[in-house]
């Protein structure tokens, strides 16, 4: 019995490491895409546009691992919740990888125009999205409820920045219609970064479910605290 469990634990540990590797890639690609836009670095943009394959490979590998663990070990309780969480986190991370490509695509178009304005809020959004992603994955690996809940709180900052960017760009576009095209691409970029934050939020919610068996999805933020719902 014990030996079988140890085997399962090793498999589960490998699964976590693979998800972590995937998260690292997703985070790095987000960082490079945003940096490419800010620094007007065509090479960085190109690297993101062509480098999606490792994440896609991991996406398939992680699903396969989860599927086999469920079929062969029929896990229960915390083990079951961990694997169901891993399946969902896997999907979220793959989407983050796609969104990094979306940022690079919009960035590539944006770089064909002269700068609309100095970029301040976009890199801030990029930083927050990356931190959310990193914290959500740290929370997953360390089974850290407090950290997962902190990720949920951060999502509001990202939403606020996106609204702020929209308002600001609107004034540029009204003043000078030639900025409309590049400004729309900046808007799209902020939208993609905000979506990355949403995926980090999903991951954090899955971590809370995995650790405490509480389902905090689709609830007001106040209910997210440990005392919010038993």
């Amino acid at each position: 019995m014990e030996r079988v469990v140890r085997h399962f634990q090793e498999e589960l540990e490998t699964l976590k490491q693979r998800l972590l590797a995937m998260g690292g890639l997703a985070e790095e690609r987000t960082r490079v895409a945003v940096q490419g836009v800010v620094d007007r670095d065509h090479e960085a943009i190109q690297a993101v546009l062509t480098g999606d394959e490792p994440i896609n490979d991991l996406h398939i590998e992680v699903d396969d691992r989860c599927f086999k663990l469920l079929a062969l070990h029929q896990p229960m309780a915390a083990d079951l919740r961990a694997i169901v969480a891993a399946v969902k986190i896997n999907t979220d991370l793959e989407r983050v990888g796609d969104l990094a490509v979306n940022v690079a695509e919009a960035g590539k178009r944006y770089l064909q125009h002269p700068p609309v304005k100095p970029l301040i809020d976009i890199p801030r959004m990029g930083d927050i999205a990356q931190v959310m992603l990193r914290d959500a994955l740290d929370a997953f690996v360390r089974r850290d409820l407090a950290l997962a809940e902190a990720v949920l709180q951060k999502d509001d900052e990202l939403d606020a920045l996106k609204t702020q960017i929209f308002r600001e760009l609107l004034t540029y576009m009204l003043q000078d219609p030639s900025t409309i095209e590049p400004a729309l691409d900046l808007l799209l970029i902020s939208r993609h970064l905000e979506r990355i934050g949403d995926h980090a939020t999903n991951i954090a919610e899955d971590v809370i479910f995995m650790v405490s068996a509480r389902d905090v999805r689709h609830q007001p933020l106040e209910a997210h605290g440990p005392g919010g719902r038993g």
Partner: protein
Amino acid sequence: MSVATPSVRSLSGLVARPGTASTAVSAPVKIDVDRMNFYYGAKRALDGISIQIRANLVTAFIGPSGCGKSTFLRSLNRMNDIIPGTRVEGTVLIDGQDIYTPGVDVVELRRRVGMVFQKSNPFPKSIFENVAYGLRINNMARSKAELNDRVEESLRQAAIFDEVKDRLHESALALSGGQQQRLCIARALAIRPEILLMDEPASALDPIATQRIEELIYDLKKTYTIVIVTHNMQQAARVSDHTAFFWLGRLVEYDRTDRIFTAPAEKLTEDYVTGRCG
């Protein structure tokens, strides 16, 4: 590992959980056990068991070997009485009546609370006689026709009639293991019990025969209150509505089966269902 203070979650406290509404907890209490201790001589095998088992549901007892789950199951129809030196404290009520008070007719109790064992144990008689036996000694059939009807009804309830209808008068020992077990279930059902206790009823059977027994349990709970002891946790998860986890003679956790296997409240239960202890 030691059990400090086993906390048994009250089932009635779990009704209002969004998205997981269950009618299970509203079922009436059939068996009500309060602070029950059980002794084999000086050795205490069960320690302060309190549990309410609901009517027309399947309740599974899980736990490692020697945890007391079979002892507890057998105490529900006083099967332990036949072991010398055993003693019971506390109360065991069935439909509000204490089955351990003096004057209780144990034969009548065992008619109401039937039992199916791990190893199928048909009498060395014909298939028909195996089922008819209990009806005869309890004078439960007034005519030959009624006897035939009751035997057929029991065999149908146990989902074995179609397989044996052409050889009812052949020896029961010629049946396969899975068929023998269903025959034993038919035999238990013939005398129309209210409660069916099953002690590892499928542990000696192949997967197909096991699946048949599990389907049967699912069908039978419409009519009977079923309590099943099983070592197979997937089986407990598949067939039962409520699950009770026993550990070292104590009831550690008792809750809806879906909760026990997805999010148990007790660390010890978690460790057991995930295979980390036991």
